[in-house]
Structures are given as C-alpha cells and as structure tokens.
C-alpha cells in the first residue's frame, strides 16, 4: 500500500522534473503525453492502494510512512511522511482521477500553444502538490502541499503571462493564499509550542490537554487557511479573477480539487475543530454566507467561467456548511461529486470557448445548442447535477448536507434555510447561463464566428472523451451513497472523521423535497426569463456587479494602506532618518572640517597666538588643579 501511495505521489513530480529537464528536446505534445501518463499512472497507483486498503479491516486502514527526517530543528522533528488512510485515499482517488481526465483534456485544449511544455510541467506539479496536500503525513507536509498547490495555481493562472490581467490575478490568488498559509503557520507555531509536534496523532492526542484559548486560536488559524484556499468569505475575491487561467486549469484547480482543500483540512483536523466548537460553527456560518453571496453574484456575471467560478464558491460553501456542522462524510461526498460535475461544466465551457476562439462573454453567445449538441448535453447534465436535480449526482450530496443541517440546533436550521435559498439561486444562475449560451437564436457574434470543429483527431478525442467520462460520472457518481439507504462513504471515512450529526430519514426526505423543489423553481424561473421570454436581463444591482465591493474593501483595507505605508516610510523614515542621518552626519562632519580649516588662516601670528593661548590655559589649569 505504501509503495503504491508513494508511487502515486511521486509520479507527477517525476513528470514535472522530466519535462523541465528535457526542455526543448521533446515535442510539445510529448510533454502532454508524459504528463497525462504520469497522472494516469498516479491514478492507477491510487487504485492499487485503494484495493489493498479495501482488503484490510477498517481499524487497520491507516498507515504512516516516513521517508526521512525533513526538518529537525531543536527538539522539533518533522519527517517527510505520507499518511495513507481512508480520507487521504478518498482524496487521492478524486484528485488523480479527475486530474488525469483534465490533463488528458488539456492535450487537446492546449494544443498549439507556444508554451505547452511549461503548461504540462505546471499541471503535473499541481497534481503532485495536491497529492502531497492530501497525503501529507503531518501538518507541516499538509502545509507544504497547501503552499505548493497555491504556487501551482499561481503559475497556471498566470500562464498567459503576457496578459497583465492574468499576471495580476495570479498574484492576487497567491497573496491571498499566502495569507491563509500564514494563519495556518501561526496555528502550527502555537501547536509546536504547546505540543511539541506537528504529527497528526501526537497533536490530536495532546489536544485535549490544551486550553480553550489555544484551541480556538489554532482552529482559527486553520480556518483562515481553509477559507483562503477554498475562496470562502472573507477571502474569496481571488477565485473569480483566477479564471484568467486556461480553462482546464479552472476545472482542475479552481473547481475540482484545490479549492476544496479547505474542506479536506477541516475534515482532516476535525479533532481540533471539535474541541473548538465555536470555530467550527463559524466555519459553517462562513460557508453558508459564502454560498448565498456567491449565488447572488453569479446571477449577474457575464463571463461564462466566472459564473461557474461563483457557483464553485457557492458549492464549497455547502461543503463548509457540512464540515462545519460535523457532517464530514456528506461534505466529502459533495466534494467528490462536485469535482465531477464542476469539472464537466468547466470543460464543457472550455469547449465552447475553444470553439468560439477564446470568447468568454455569455452576452455574445447564444443559440449554440444546435451547433454543439453534444456539448449542450454535457453542460445540461452538469447544470442539472449542480442544481441538485435527481437522479444526478448533486442531488444526493447536497441534500444530505442540508438534511444534516436540518437535524441540528437552531443555528444549523438557520443555515439550512439559507442553504435552501442558495439552492434556488443555484438553479437560477446555472440555467441562466445555459439558456443564454445555448438557447435562443444565434447571436451576431456566433454567426460571425461559427464554432469550428477541430480537424485534429487527438484534439477532438481528448476533449470529447474526457467530457463524456465526466458526464457519466456526474450522472451516476452520486449513487454511491444515498443517505439513509446505503452509506459506503460515511462508513469508509468513519475511522478518520466520525460524523457529529446524522439526519433521520424523515429529515432527509424533507430536505430533499424542499431543495429539489426550490432548485427546480430556480430552473423554472431561469427558463421563464431567459428562454421563454429571452428577456433582457434586468439591470443588476451595482452591489452585485461589484461583488459586494470586497475587492474595493480589500484594496482599501490592505493593499493601499500597504502601499501608502511603504511610501510614507520611504518619505519619512528611509529618506530623512535612515539616509538623512548619514547625510546629516556627513554634512556636519564636513562643516566642522570647514570650520577647522577656516582657523588655519595662514597667518603665522595666529599660529603663535594659538600656542600662547594654549600655554596660558595649560599653565592656568596646572596651577589651579595642583
């Protein structure tokens, strides 16, 4: 099992190194193949490990494997180790599975790009980082993976580095994530001080003895990392901008895997969160607020990818809600199926964008259904899954979370209510996008730029086949678990994350009915507005268009103050004090020198006088002092 896990982890890294070292000596497509094969290999390895794990008893499924001591400073030691347990296994499968599909899709999507090699190197690096995140055998390696996915995300968002907006978006994403890294690191420092270790088992076992303050601070630090990575309130603003990256990147990183790492983190460190229940409630609250806010903003977005991005944000809000109320397995379940259908949506959108020569504005699209029927089908599946319409996958996962919320206390029920509103919004914005893009008459733009089918078989196959696979997964993936009937995921994750809360079957039913109903209502409203009447969208509220002014707020709160502070320091400290002191001392010295120089008049009488005066003083002092 360990060997397979290590193989899974290191294969993508190997591919990165290989592509980098080979550089220009291989063809661009070869780089793509290397990457794809390595990811597929990683998936295979993960499957092998999974099979091995299945063969063991549930108590014996956790195994820690340490390669070597990575950092040993003072009494603090951390090994380069991976933890293979049901949770990480679950994530490995999702990551490598979806990952290899998307990499394969990229073979087609990125075909012809100048810097394809760089792209695939980055993609492999990302897969490695993500695996490190989920496989990391201690908190530090979790953080390392955490940081490395942020790095790969930065690299890939900024892939089109000649576009200033892409560069800016990449920087923004990285810096906000760095903020999250920092809060996590602070939590870790606290843990090191209090427990002396960052190993999961040591930390968890010693956590009981920590004071509530410490626990709250630690949990807050972890939550900071989680919200930053998962683009939850209040650190959500980077995700829409991140759509500057190539679409497969959005699919892989900003939908399927990386952004859900926050959920993974909460689930992984649930013993800590459970000891700080208020923070966990906070996580649920933040998730809920995010899902509502993102749903609202998504309504007015005009960029196809941004719509999906906000929906991602919103869906992760559900996951946070689930993880926050302790329905870990449900959150993980949504995480998985979300990976399927959101990847599907992105890749479908990618096909549209690709076909339209890079156009992303839905207002310029329209009537594509006839031109791209297969894509329409795929997108429809994705959209229905997203809206939680049975029997597609989203239904099973999302509703189980809502049901769990319904099972909780008053606070949780408020969250449930908001979640229902969110479900309505989900249906609305998803189908707004679908109807605008695919429905109705062909827009002027589409007529001018008719979507062209590629002539390259590989391109078509790689994009078509992967989308097809994802469509299948999005359709049937949810059947793995049907709350109240069969719960393999909950059982699987039981040893790692035992749910705090479980809905009764009646609650499940109530939640399902309500959410499906409002979801359908949302779809209906969308149909009524955007398909049946092709209404011009009402002028949206400025507050939505400006995404609740979070960008402006953060610019005003952090960026500009930092810049201003730097300027002020430059003007008030660096210039006048640090440098000025030198100039001042130098000037003073020089003036003193000039003054002494002026004493040297060249007149011999003055010289003699100096001697005489010096003598008079010296004699006086000698006589006086003796």
């Amino acid at each position, binding site marked *: 099992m360990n060997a397979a896990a290590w193989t899974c982890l290191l294969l993508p890294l190997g591919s990165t190194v290989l592509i*980098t070292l080979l*550089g*220009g000596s291989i063809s661009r497509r070869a780089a793509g193949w290397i990457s794809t094969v390595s990811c597929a290999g990683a998936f295979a390895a993960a499957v092998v490990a999974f099979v091995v794990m299945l063969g063991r008893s549930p108590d014996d499924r956790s195994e820690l494997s340490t390669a*070597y*001591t*990575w*950092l*040993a*400073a*003072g*009494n*603090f030691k951390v090994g380069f180790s991976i933890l293979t347990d049901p949770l990480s296994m679950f994530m490995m499968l999702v990551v490598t599975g979806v990952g290899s599909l998307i990499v394969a899709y990229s073979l087609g999507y990125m075909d012809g790009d100048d*810097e394809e090699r*760089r792209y695939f190197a980055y993609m492999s690096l990302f897969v490695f980082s993500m695996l*490190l995140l989920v496989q990391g055998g201690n908190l*530090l390696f979790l*953080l*390392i*993976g*955490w*940081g*490395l996915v942020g*790095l790969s995300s*930065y*690299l890939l968002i*900024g892939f089109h*580095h*000649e*576009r*200033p907006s892409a*560069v800016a978006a*990449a*920087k923004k994403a*990285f*810096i906000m994530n*760095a*903020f999250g*890294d*920092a*809060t996590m*690191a*602070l939590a*870790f*420092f*606290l843990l*090191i*001080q209090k427990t002396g270790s960052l190993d999961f088992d040591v930390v968890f076992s010693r956590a009981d003895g920590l004071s509530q303050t410490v626990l709250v601070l630690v949990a807050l630090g972890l939550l900071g990392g989680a919200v930053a990575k998962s683009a939850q309130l209040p650190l959500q603003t980077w995700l829409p901008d991140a759509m500057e990256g190539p679409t497969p990147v959005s699919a892989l990183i900003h939908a399927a895997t990386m952004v859900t790492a926050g959920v993974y983190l909460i689930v992984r460190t649930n013993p800590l969160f459970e000891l700080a229940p208020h923070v966990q409630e906070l996580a649920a609250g933040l998730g809920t607020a995010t899902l509502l806010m993102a749903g609202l903003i998504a309504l007015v977005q005009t960029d196809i990818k941004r719509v999906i991005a906000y929906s991602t944000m919103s869906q992760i809000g559900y996951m946070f809600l689930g993880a926050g109320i302790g329905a870990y397995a449900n959150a993980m379940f949504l995480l998985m199926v979300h990976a399927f259908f959101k990847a599907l949506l992105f890749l479908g959108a990618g096909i549209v964008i690709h076909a339209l020569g890079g156009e992303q504005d839905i207002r310029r699209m329209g009537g594509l259904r006839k031109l791209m029927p297969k894509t329409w089908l795929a997108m429809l599946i994705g959209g229905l899954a997203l809206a939680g319409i049975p029997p597609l996958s989203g239904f099973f996962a999302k509703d189980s979370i809502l049901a769990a919320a319904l099972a909780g206390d008053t606070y949780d029920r408020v969250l449930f209510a908001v979640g229902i509103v969110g479900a309505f919004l989900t249906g609305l914005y998803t189908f707004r996008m679908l109807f605008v893009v695919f429905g109705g008459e062909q827009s002027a733009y589409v007529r001018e730029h008719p979507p062209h089918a590629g002539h390259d078989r590989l391109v078509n196959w790689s994009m078509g086949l992967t989308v097809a696979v994802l469509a299948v997964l999005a359709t049937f993936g949810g059947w793995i678990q049907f709350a109240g009937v069969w719960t393999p995921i909950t059982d699987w994750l039981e040893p790692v994350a035992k749910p705090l809360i479980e809905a009764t079957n009646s609650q499940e039913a109530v939640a399902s009915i309500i959410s499906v109903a409002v979801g359908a209502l949302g779809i209906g409203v969308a149909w009524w507005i955007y398909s049946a009447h092709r209404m011009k969208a009402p002028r949206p509220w400025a507050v939505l268009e400006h995404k609740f002014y979070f960008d402006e707020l953060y610019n005003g709160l952090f960026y500009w103050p*930092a*810049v201003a*502070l*730097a300027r002020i*320091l*430059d003007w008030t*400290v*660096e210039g006048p*004090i*640090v*440098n000025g*002191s*030198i100039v001042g001392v130098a000037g003073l010295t020089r003036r003193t020198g000039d003054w002494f120089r002026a004493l040297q008049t060249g007149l011999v009488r003055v010289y003699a006088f100096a001697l005489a005066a010096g003598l008079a003083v010296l004699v006086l002092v000698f006589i006086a002092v003796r």
Partner: protein
Amino acid sequence: MTSHGWITTTMIMLPLIAAVVLWVVPMPRVWVAPAALLVSLFEVGFWIEALVRYDFDRGGLQEWNHATWLKDLGVSYSVGFYQGFSIWLVGLTTIVMAASTAYGYWMRRDRPRAYYGLMLFLTGAIVGVFTAQDLLLFYIFWEAMLIPLYVLIGAWGGPGRLNATIKFVIYTMVGSLLMLAAVIVYGLQAGTFSMIDGGTNASDWIFLGFAAAFVVKAPLFPFHGWLPDAYRESPAEVSAVLSGVISKAAAFGFLRICFSLFPAGVQDFRTPILVLAAIGLVYGSLLAFRAPDIRGVVAYSSLAQLGLIVLGLFATNNLGIDGAVLQMVNHGLISAVLFLLAGAVERRAATGRFESLGGMAKGRPALATVLMATGIIALAVPGSGAFAGEFAILAGVFQQGWLYAVVGAVAIVLAAMYVLRMISGVLHARKGPAVHDNALDLRPAELAILVPLIGILLFLSAWPAAITDRVLG
C-alpha cells in the same frame, strides 16, 4: 603551532596567497581569470573535504590550528571550525565566491589581475571571519573584508559608486570600530583574546560594542542606510557576495561571539534586538515592495531577511537558531542568484528598473525558469528550504513572544507581494521599452553558474535537515 589538521589554514591562506601571486607575478592576462576561478573551485573542494572531516556528532572546535602571534597581549592566530554552523557558512562563502568569480569571468571584467586578486583576497578574509577563534583575529579578518570590497565596488561599480562606497565603508566601519573597542576591553579584562579560553563576560557595554558592528553589517533596521546604494551600485557579483555572504558574517558574529561570550548581554538586549529585527522585517518588506528596480527589491528584501535571521537567533532556542542558520545559507544562495540574475538582466536591458522591463519570459525560457525558481524559493513557498528556515525561525521566536511570529507571518505575505512584483515586473506582462527582441536568453555559461546554486537550493528544499540537524553541538 598547534595543529589539528591542515585544512582551515589552507582554506584561509590559499586565496590570500593566490591573490598576492596574481598581483605580483606577471602573467598573461588571459590566464588570470581561469587561475582565480580554479583557486575558488579548489576552495569549494577543500570545503567539501572539511565537511567530510568535520565530526558533527562530536561538534565543538575541530580542525583547529593555533599559533601564538602577539604574545604580549594574548593574541594568537587561532582558526578552526567551531560547531556545525561555521562549516555551513564557510561552504556558503566558497560556493558563492566561486560563482561570483565565475560570473566575473563571464562578464570579462577589465583589469583582471586586480579584480580577481581582490576577489580571492575577499574569499580568504571571509573564510577567516568564519573560522577565527581569536577575537582580534576575527576583527582583522572582519576589516580585511572591507578593503577589497571598497575597491571592487568603487572601481567596477555603477555610476553612483563613489558615494555608495564611502557610505558603505564608513558606516560599517563606525560599527566595527566600536567592536574594536569592545574587543580590547574584553581581551584586556580576560587576559586573552581567545574566544575559547576567554570565558564569558557579563558586561553589557562590551556586548553592545559587538552588537554595533553586527547590526550595521547585517544590517538591521535602522542601520541600513548604506545598503540600498551599495547593493545598487556594486557589480552584480559583488552585490551577490555582499548580500549573500558578508551580511551573514554579522549573524555569525552574533551566534559565535555574542551568544558564547556575552550571554548576559544577549539576555538583557534580547527584546530590543528582537523588536528592531521585527521592525526591519516588515520595513524591509514594505520598501522592497516599493523599490523601483530589481536590485532595490533584493536589497530591501535582504534587510528583511536579515531581520528574520536575527529573530531566529535571538529566539535563543535551538529551534530558532537552527532555522536561522539554515536561512543564512538559503538567503545567501538566493540573494546571490538574484543579484547575478539582476546583473544578467541589466546586461541585456541596460537597466534594472521595472518601468522599462517586462515581458522577458517570452522566448527566454531559461531566464524565466531560473528567475521563477529562485523567486519562488525566495518567497518561502512551503516546501522550499527557505520555508523550512523561516518556519523554524518563527516557530522558535514564537516561544519568545507570539507577536514576533505574527509580524513574521505578515512579512511572509509581504514577501510574496514583493517577489511576485519583481518576477512579473521582469518577466511578465507587456514587453518593456528596454527589452529588445534580440536580447538573449541566459547563455550556457550563465546557466552553468546559476544552476548549481539553484541545485543546492533545491537540495536544501528536499532536505533542510541536512543543515538544521547539524548546526550546534
């Protein structure tokens, strides 16, 4: 002469003698640079030998060479490797110096005999600083570093070099002269200048004398007035040495001298120094974020990084110190690479200002890869060696006061901001007016210089414990 091995003296004397030979013995000009490079590579070789010989488990002082020199006042020639950290710093020195020498060769510096002689002399002096076991000898090497630097910057530097050198040398000398006073006081009180036999001294004043030299040399905020100009006006490879190696001498001084000889002073002044270091960390980061050119960014980031290293040292626990030593090596290599890259960019674009740069990544994959890789390590992305160092430092200083670690964490975010700004300012977005299409990618020779350094950085990223586990003992 008491001798326990030959290697320390050899490592000091070889470059010094080679320098004198270069100056004095006439030889064809074309031989000069290869000869110097060969010597500096020999230094690296000797260092590897020393690394192999040094018994980390035993620790303490090894490869000790001792000879009385000025018996009258108890001064002796006494050199050796004292604990693991001196090994690492000597290694950093030899490697960075070899890279810088090679870079100078590549740049075809004029007046080669003087140039390479000075570089070699500098090498010897720095190795001397890191191995001296006698305070006066330490001081001598300390000052001896300054002399070649003065001319290297002044004769081969940029247009503002004359003022920059004066500022640099006098500012740092004021600090070191106070150290001389402290050395004298300590030595006369103890009856010997030996760091080994002298014992501790509880005087705060002596500690402050030493600290004055170290805070200026490092530099620590607000004693960094000399830094921006010196780093900007030096030849790139000298900037690399300045920020990569010379600044580490100050941190080394704290560690080797202050910690072992003046524990009381360290105790008394820990808080002020920590505060200064923390301020410098944020301050340097902010100014790096605002700096208009590559070198400005690297220069102010050096200020910040040295603040961080001092935070780690003055955490006064093994965690912080181990991290600080790792970070010294990391930062030494990073800033060396960044300065050499700055030189490479300036050579191609004739400027280092961001307003004229940009878009260099297009068609220059090697430059982009090298700069990106180094920048990413510089901003301490988790998993990098710099991350390991910073993590250990902050975890260490957290135990002195959580606020320091919070400040450090803020600074890490700021570091991300300024490094990314630098990377994108050079490589990304629209092509700057100073970037010509025919500006070349990094040449194989440049890669041959830079890639080994980055290789070491990557190695340290994969296994930071290689150093942190072998710092003290």
